[in-house]
């Protein structure tokens, strides 16, 4: 729980820490000049831990999440995911690692509109090369209570149902780390509560490391640790 610079990032890479960031910086150029979105962030997250990243809009939460998940590359510093140095991997290498070790849940659900609920859940299994994709996907949908809606397209599902499909998709590959970006942000309080319940339940069952970006205090409070972000820095 510290943003303290570390002397040797490599030295911190122990098997318990499934996710680590050391001296992470992200700068982008804008019409007003260089903009630093993430400033010198170092964190360690152990296996099975649940961590909430909270902070005001524009604090850099989603960018940090993108850097930790290997969706974006840092300007400087390093990220280790499941023991792999993300900065040493190219985009395809990071994609392969995500296929094996990472799950995602997004605010906007991000289901593929042309795929049915079942097909959306099958997709990451297929990408990971799993042979029992269909059976595993059906099971996952059953766990989120959507066994009866496997053939429905996203547009035929309510927001809460869509996010449950996204949860099934996220957990079906049994990822080491699950990244969730405002998972209840698009849902009303009741539905959001149900989805949060499901998210934490599944997380506990599968002992997945959870990294959650949220505005909601109640959701953050359910995590084991809370990182506060402001102006690109993680505050203690």
């Amino acid at each position: 729980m510290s943003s303290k610079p570390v002397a040797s990032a490599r030295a911190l890479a122990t098997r318990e820490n499934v996710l680590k960031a050391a001296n992470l910086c992200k700068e982008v150029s804008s019409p007003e000049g260089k903009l630093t979105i993430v400033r010198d962030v170092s964190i360690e997250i152990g296996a099975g831990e649940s961590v909430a990243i909270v902070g005001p809009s524009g604090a850099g939460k989603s960018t940090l999440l993108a850097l930790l998940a290997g969706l974006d590359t840092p300007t400087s510093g390093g990220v280790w995911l499941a023991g792999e140095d993300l900065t040493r991997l190219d985009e395809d290498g990071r994609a392969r690692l995500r296929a094996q070790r990472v799950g995602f849940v997004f605010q906007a659900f991000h289901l593929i509109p042309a795929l049915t609920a079942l097909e959306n859940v099958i997709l990451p299994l297929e990408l990971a090369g799993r042979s029992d994709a269909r059976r595993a996907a059906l099971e996952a949908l059953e766990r989120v209570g959507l066994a009866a809606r496997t053939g429905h397209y996203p547009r035929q599902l309510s927001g809460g149902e869509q996010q449950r499909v996204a949860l099934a998709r996220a957990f079906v590959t049994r990822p080491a780390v699950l990244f969730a970006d405002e998972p209840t942000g698009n849902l009303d309080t009741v539905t959001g509560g149900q989805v949060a319940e499901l998210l934490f339940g599944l997380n506990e069952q599968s002992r997945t490391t959870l990294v959650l970006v949220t505005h909601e205090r109640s959701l953050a409070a359910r995590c084991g640790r809370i990182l506060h972000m402001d102006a690109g820095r993680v505050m203690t």
Partner: protein
Amino acid sequence: MRALALALRGFAREWRSGALGVLLLALTTAVAALTGVGFLVERVASAVAEQATQVLAADLRLRSTEPIGPADFQEAARRGVRSARTVSMLSVVFLGDRSELSDLEAVSAGYPLRGTLKVAREPFAVGSPASGIPGRGEAWPSSKLLATLGGALGSTLSIGAANFRVTRVLISRPDQGGDFTELAPSIVLNADDLPATGLILPGSRVTYAALFAADRARIEDFRQWLAAHRRPGEGLRDIAEASPQIENAVDRAGRFLELASLASVLLCSIAVAMSARQYVRQHLDSVALMKTLGATRALTLSVSLIELLLVAVAAALAGSAIGFAAEQWLLHVLRGLINAELPPADLAPLGMGFLAALAVLAGFALPPLLQLSRVPPLRVLRRDVGPPPLLVLLAFGPAAAAVIALLYWAVRDLGLVRDALLGLSGFTLVLVAAGLALVLAAGRLRGRVGVAWRYGIANLSRRRADSLVQIVAFGTGLMALLLLGLVRGDLESDWRRTLPADAPNYFFINIPPADRDAFVEFLEARGAKLSRMLPMLRGRLTEINGLPVERRAFRRGEGPGFADREQNLTWTATLGASNRVVAGRWWTAQDEGKPLVSLATEFQRSLGLRIGDRLTFDVGGEPFTVTVANLREVKWDSFQPNFFIVFAPGVLDAAAGTYLTSAYFHPAQGAALAELARRFPSVSIFDVDDLLEQVRSLIDKAILAVQSVFAFTLFAGLTVLLAAVQASRDERRYESAMLRTLGASAGTVLQGVLAEFATVGLLAGLLAAGGASLAGAFVAARILQVPYALDPTVFLVGLAGGAVLVGASGWLATRAAVAQPPLATLRAG
């Protein structure tokens, strides 16, 4: 394997959801245009070639002054090529004590191999096709010959040592020729009767001909064999040397069809490019998501490529099927008009269709697809993140290569492809510049108009790149359509003008100067419509720039033929209506008596002559040396009297000559012609009704082909509209939902959409009309050689068509989105 499975599933899903609809439609139209139109051009060309062969009465004609040996006929029979023989000579025909010099044609069974021999029961009557050739002992004299001799059906004619009974009157034979070198009236006999006449003696001037016909592949092989085994003195003629009247019309029809297929290719390419853009947009999110979930770039690229390949296969199948249907339909339509021996349909178009689909996709869809695979996974969190921009070379290189390849495939003429590309690039630049100007102006205008227009016009400047793409796409599409519409009109009206119902159907040659006025009076009194009367002399070209022609080396094959044959010469002060001076200048009153000559370009090119060259002609033993003063392009399909060689007035006037003219005679005036034949016995009468009919039917076919291809191009234009409108539909749906949520009525939103599309349509239409007018002038003058008048209505059509078509399709495409409750749209996101 994984990529294949994913692609197959993706394709199946998108097929079901209709997401591939426009891309597939555009590509199918492109394939159908390339295979179907290509086929159409080929079939029309072969139908036309078939028609042209009738002028030779065969596909190939071998001519010699010596009898043609059996080897050629045996070889023809071995190859399945049909054959017939003719022997022609000049001979005097007697009926009692009357006699007349005639062109005797002895023909063998099977003659004519192409075209028909038309006969009647009295002179100058309407002919009907003969069944076979004259029997032994029978003769079929031409109307003129029989009328001059005062004979009738059943009369006995003596030719040489044999007697013949007149059983039919010859009205026309297909190979009677359009160059009037055989001035004597014809008579047709059975070749087996020729020995009995005893006319063929050593030294007789006899022309032997072997006629051959078969399907195109066989005749081409046989032509090569004949050319290799030809003996000295044997001349080979094929359809390429057929009548210039027919060649002219055919050439222009072919050119138009080429233009039309070129326009279709262009339109379809635009449609494919637009729908590929849309495909990429629709897939940005899913590809980013797939990458987030662990898909590599290679995998996403493979999936898209395989999907695209599947689209190509589907389009090739559908497009070729449409092409095949067009083929069958065309065969059905043309069946009554031609008796062409067409090769059976095969699977080749399918392969070609697939290649065409691949080429269009590779040029227009591959670059955006490569870009699609480069979309970063970060897009799942930040929607503003897109793929990095393509390198200019990669973005436009394949498209340019595909356009060049497809254009060349469609027209097979490098010069035309080059001109089209230059024109197109220039026009695109103008469109881009004008589009930019509009987008900038729109930004300033928005404060001065009502809310609906403000919203519409604001859209134009906000979606700057999209607006530009739309203006270029609509502008190019409309331009291609307007251009085709313009030149089609010009071509058709020129054809109809060239051959009005009263186009001259008779040529009169050998009118003695003394009878000239009486002749004109006679014809006019009987209501005939005369064209101009020209003097005619026979002469031989002996020297070019002081060098005897026999010592001159000719580069072009037909040079020697043109040089050593006797030429028809004329002189006139005025340039004929169907002539156009293309080099040098026509003479004025001051040039009278100067030794100047005007040449038709066919003659000039064959002999490799230039302005200023000195030519010496032997006219009745007297040499005349003249300088080439100008070159003329002659519209031979006008059926007006025209000459390769025209002298300035006052040079040849003293030489003895006769006159020539053409006139239209109503078919029912056969009796008047018979009277004319008796009154002016020296005048040769040529009935060109058949030739005229041939050209007319050919032009009808060409017009039919031109219209069907034009209809096809219109359809291709519609797919462009569809593709362009489809491309921005999702965005518009979202925007209109937003506006409606903010309180705008459905009417206001629709007005805004209408305003935006109508403005794009107006600008594209205006520029398209300008572009089409310019291109039309070029095409009419350089390619089709038809008169061109700037038609201001094209601007009206362009502006109205652009605004209405583009506006209406934009409205149709967004109407459903606006009608939908805004919440549903916003929820779907």
